[in-house]
């Protein structure tokens, strides 16, 4: 007998970077992607990392996911050192990268075919799993689109499916790599609200990398600023607005001021380098 599947992560996990550096070696050259990065993400919080493109933001996510290993320093998730994929993370990228031969529902179910114990229970609890996937799809506003194929969905809808796929196995950490970067401004703001709702409902720790400062400020509890390559943390800003935040907030003076401050700190850092 297997326990009945539970999907909710009780809480998000804690993430700690402890003096992490990573250098990519290739035959010709070595590139230092990030340099002595240290910061903590408290369980269940929403942290955004902003920085110029090519500053190693994506590297941060891959380190947490266990897809890359630090050259120096350590990454911890809940007091466990990350040395391999932990299976408690969900990832979503700028490209929705859905499987074109599967429906929205089939795409969302994919992780359950891989992560244990779900993969083992799949046959027995198929109906539960499908119900859960449908719930998720309706949370992101895709009820009724379960049987649509990716090419029948708009870019924003595909990204919602991608988000559901990242969440179906009840991850304690959600890693997002510029998930809304390819969308138009209206769709992007719509999806901010969707992401916020998902986060508030399910409570994972979210690590979002983006170069959209408004996006970072609107969603995050804390925003970290990274320098250009090799990436270092050069700034930290707590965002005090309460949740759930409304889009109206993003037009307030306080909000704009915060975005402006972040922009100035990035510009200052770039000027110092030049």
């Amino acid at each position, binding site marked *: 007998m297997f326990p009945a599947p539970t999907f909710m992560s009780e809480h998000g996990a804690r993430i700690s970077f402890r003096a992490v550096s990573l250098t990519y070696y290739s035959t010709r050259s070595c590139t230092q992607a990030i340099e002595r990065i240290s910061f903590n993400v408290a369980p269940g919080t929403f942290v955004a990392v902003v920085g110029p493109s090519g500053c190693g933001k994506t590297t941060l996510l891959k380190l947490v996911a266990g*897809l890359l290993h630090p050259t120096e320093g350590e990454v911890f998730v809940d007091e466990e050192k990350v040395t*391999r*994929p932990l299976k408690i*993370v969900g*990832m979503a990228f700028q490209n929705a990268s859905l499987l074109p*031969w599967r429906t929205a529902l089939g795409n969302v179910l994919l992780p359950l075919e*891989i*992560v244990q114990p779900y993969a083992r229970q799949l046959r027995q609890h198929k109906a539960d799993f499908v119900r859960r996937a449908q719930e998720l799809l309706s949370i992101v506003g895709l009820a009724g689109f379960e049987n649509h194929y990716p*090419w029948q969905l708009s870019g924003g809808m595909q990204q919602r499916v991608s988000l559901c796929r990242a969440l179906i*196995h009840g991850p304690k950490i959600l890693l997002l790599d510029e998930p809304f970067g390819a969308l138009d401004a209206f769709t992007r703001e719509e999806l901010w609200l969707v992401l916020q709702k998902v986060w508030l409902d399910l409570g994972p720790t979210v690590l979002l990398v983006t170069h959209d400062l408004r996006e970072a400020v609107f969603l995050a509890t804390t925003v970290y600023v990274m320098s250009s390559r090799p990436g270092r943390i050069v700034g930290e800003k707590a965002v005090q607005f309460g949740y759930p935040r409304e889009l109206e907030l993003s037009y307030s003076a306080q909000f704009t001021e915060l975005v402006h401050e972040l922009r100035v700190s990035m510009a200052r850092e770039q000027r110092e380098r030049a």
Partner: protein
Amino acid sequence: MNLREKIRNWAIPTLAVVLFFLIWEGIVLIFHIPKFVLPTPSVVIRALWQWGRIIAWHSGQTLYTTILGFSIAVIVGLVLGWAVGFSAMLYKALYPLLIAFNSIPKVAIVPILVIWFGIGTIPAVLTAFLISFFPILVNVATGLATLEPELRDVLLSLGATQFQIFRKVGLPRTLPYFFGSLKVAVTMAFVGSVISETVASNRGIGYLMIAASSRFDVPLVFAGLLAIALMGVGLYAIAAILEARLTRWAYRR
């Protein structure tokens, strides 16, 4: 598909074929080209009718060796293509070898096959196989090698094994590439078996054409060509139908 579209889909190609034969017939008649140089289509079709039973028997042999060789090519092409597409090391190791091998004209291999296996069916099957497995391999390998890195990351972060990635993503992804290559490969398989038959066989359309040409029976040679062409179109159509049925998702209809 409505009736009008259906008619158009059938009528236009048929019209093109009829027009092709008419022009051929016209050119031969206008320039008074003798029958033993270029027979008119009507003469060819008459020969096809006259020698029907013999042509059918030899066609059967050619079809048999082609399909057998092609089936082996499908299996070998799929397995090697998956292996080469999935493992960067195997790719590096095998690609030069495979390309070198594919550059060898297959007609040059037939005499060797004859030494090994004697004349007849086996060299024809093997030549058909050798000539047609390469496009399958290359296509399948390409399908795997172009897998999005993000998708691989998503699966790896979930703790997926390489085999799971292959089964869930790689394999279905290669199918459109695979079926696309089948259409090319199946017509090439005919080339292989007919080449082998013309060099070393006493059966098959290739042999029939060589025998006919040694008797200067040019209409019969052309009748043989027509028979091969018809079989080629037939197998191509089957491959195309399979493709449309099994990889509908890739065509967005």
